[in-house]
């Protein structure tokens, strides 16, 4: 794999859908979504969000991930130069019906959320024995 230099990007803001209770801006996290034969894995970059501030909401087939950031500045600090915007993260996904909704694992580490969703076992072909009466 060739080495690539990372490019700075402005964060994309979530389009407002109704009013929010919590003040501040909300951004769309960058995600990777991939499938293995057994699972569907979602990886999202949410810097500044600790593990206990992640909310996962699954309603029917709609998954919403929400990450609430901690205070961006320490007490008594004032901003001198601001290059990146600060705010919570939110993104909605429509899942296929193949997900076993009771088997979802979430790990938050270094500002990266990893969500492992297990696919529903497909109806396996079964042999039906006919008993001789």
């Amino acid at each position, binding site marked *: 794999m060739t*080495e690539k*230099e990372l490019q*700075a990007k402005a964060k994309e803001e979530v389009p407002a859908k109704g009013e929010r209770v919590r003040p501040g801006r909300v951004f769309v996290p960058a*995600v990777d979504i*991939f499938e293995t034969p057994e699972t569907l894995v979602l990886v999202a970059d949410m*810097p500044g969000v600790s593990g206990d501030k992640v909310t996962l909401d699954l309603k029917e087939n709609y998954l919403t991930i929400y990450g609430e950031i901690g205070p961006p500045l320490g007490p008594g600090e004032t901003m001198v130069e601001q*290059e990146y915007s600060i705010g919570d993260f939110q993104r909605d996904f429509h899942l296929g019906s193949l997900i076993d909704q009771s088997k979802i694992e979430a790990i938050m580490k270094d500002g*990266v959320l990893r969500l492992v969703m297990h696919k529903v076992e497909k109806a396996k072909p079964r042999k039906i024995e006919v008993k001789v009466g």
Partner: protein
Amino acid sequence: MPIFFREPRWNPQRELEQLQRRMDRVFQDAFGLEGRPRRAGVYPLVNISEDPDHIYVRAELPGVRAENLEITLQDNSLILRGERKIPAEEKQVNYHRRERESGFFRRVMPLPAMVQGDKVEATCKDGILTITMAKPEAVKPRKIEVKVA
């Protein structure tokens, strides 16, 4: 006859100013600029803040491990080099979305005030790198008491 409505004289200067303001708003909305011109963006973008005793430089580096970061202080400039690695997944995976990027970065940023080179600390928490630098005694704000004569 009373004048109910007076057509304002056409003022190209004002029209241009209005247009400028509207365009500014469009750009602010579209690119999330905080009402100020953005500098040439080099990864990682940083926020610099201060309190009376310290200067803080913060950068969003989700998933970057401390051992892949190299921070140098040189002539009152901070040099930030490193690499963001995204571990390869198993071979049989198929991607639906691939937005997270990996690669290396190297950035130099001049600091807004003098700092003490031996009092610099860097911590990584929840994907945010915070570099804390102590200001030298000479630049710290001092309270000057007014003596009553």
